């Protein structure tokens, strides 16, 4: 743990008693030994880790509120997988600056988050969540499929694990896009609205950045994923008789810490307990 957190914990006396944060550390790397990320690789790991963390936090809000019990369970499971990816990625990112995954998750404010705008878009109605999930799961599947071949052994190991899990997420969202688009007039109307509300945020996902230029062979160039993404979603949208929305493209800026008003509220809810009771465990 970093110094500022320990001092918080030391100053704090409350009835949580002895502070014992669970010490599970995932060594994402190969069995031979731990590795430390370079500054650039850490920044890239932060990009991907923040996307997963914020999306997981958003999906967790559906538990007990989904249209049916099975969906509570499904979205909860998807969120749990994403938390797993976020933990590995943030742990690795933290090796460059001697911070833990919890330091990075709970003690940064929005300008320090590197997540894409699409993951901070509100859950909306169920169709909005499914539209967002459909885009992100297909993107993550293409990303992790390629990141398995990264020159960085740790990123490759995380990706090889994650790709199998996001394959299920991809399938889950695909089934729901088809069901909603081909269900009742009302479900179809909502699916069309949701897709057009989410679509302006798709462009940012595939924008290249000087960081991914520098990390050629280690990171996956975002623009290189677009053809595969388009090819994967096209048959689903065709079957669902949905058209790719045309309209404005959001400015983005998540990768440099420029966020919409939504992220601060998400972080406030995610971080409040840790900040009110530093080091608490249960």
């Amino acid at each position, binding site marked *: 743990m970093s110094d500022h957190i320990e001092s918080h914990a030391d100053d704090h006396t409350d009835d949580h008693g002895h502070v014992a944060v*669970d010490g*599970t*550390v*995932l*060594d*994402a*790397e*190969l*069995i031979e030994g731990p590795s430390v990320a370079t500054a650039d690789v850490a920044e890239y790991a932060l990009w991907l880790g923040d996307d997963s963390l914020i999306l997981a936090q958003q999906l967790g809000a559906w538990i007990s509120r989904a249209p049916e019990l*099975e969906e509570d*369970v*499904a979205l*909860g*499971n*998807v969120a*749990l*997988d*994403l*938390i*797993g*990816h976020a*933990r*590995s990625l943030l742990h690795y990112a933290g090796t460059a600056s001697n911070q833990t995954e919890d330091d990075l998750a709970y003690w940064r404010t929005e300008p320090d988050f590197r997540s894409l705008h699409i993951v901070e878009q509100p859950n909306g109605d169920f169709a909005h969540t499914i539209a967002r999930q459909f885009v992100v799961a297909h993107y993550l*599947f*293409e990303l992790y*499929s*390629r990141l*398995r*071949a990264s020159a960085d*052994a740790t990123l*490759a*190991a*995380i990706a*090889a*694990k*994650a*790709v*199998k*899990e996001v*394959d*299920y997420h991809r*399938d*889950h969202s695909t*089934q729901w896009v088809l069901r909603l688009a081909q269900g009742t007039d009302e479900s179809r109307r909502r699916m069309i609205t949701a897709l057009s509300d989410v679509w302006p945020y798709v462009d940012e996902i595939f924008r290249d950045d000087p960081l991914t230029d520098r990390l050629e062979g280690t990171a996956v160039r975002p623009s290189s994923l677009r053809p*595969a993404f388009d090819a*994967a979603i096209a048959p689903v949208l065709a079957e669902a008789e949905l058209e790719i929305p045309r309209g404005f493209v959001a400015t983005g800026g998540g990768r440099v810490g420029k966020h919409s008003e939504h992220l601060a509220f998400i972080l406030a809810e995610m971080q409040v307990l840790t900040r009110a009771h530093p080091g608490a465990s249960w």
Partner: protein
Amino acid sequence: MVSAHPHSSDLHEALARPRPTDPASLAAWTIAAQVVDPEIPVLTIEDLGVLRSVNVAGDAVAVTLTPTYSGCPAMDAMRDDVLEVLTSAGYENVSVRLVLSPAWTTDWMSEIGKAKLREYGIAAPTGHSTVRESGPAGPVRLKMAVKCPRCSSLNTRELAHFGSTSCKSLYECRDCLEPFDYFKVL
């Protein structure tokens, strides 16, 4: 199980259950291998293929485990249980690490483990993991019938992709009408 390819089956076992060859490490492995999955207590971490290595050097035992799913909350319990069982056996300096690579797959589950799973009322994974090892993974979708663990009917259907834990999905038998968990292929 009788295998037509005993040699490839041996290789598969060596990957799924990489037992150490030196007697001291093997003794510690045998003890660690008794630890069970807290969510599915009929399966040991050895049956699952979660136990990846045990190495004894002097009075130190180093164990590595791999998670089934990235976010599996049972890993903390399995790690604690490995520490506990080895400490109780008299080992003093025990360390447990979690590693992600090579990524766990249901292909590593032992045949004994699959039989115990069915006995317990959970359908065992059918077929093999379909995500390719390298390059873009294609849309390979193998769908095999899942057998009801109660009445063995193949007339079953998936109720939900996701179930009570990360590793399971929810099925229903159309003959005996009972719902059941299926340990899905990963």
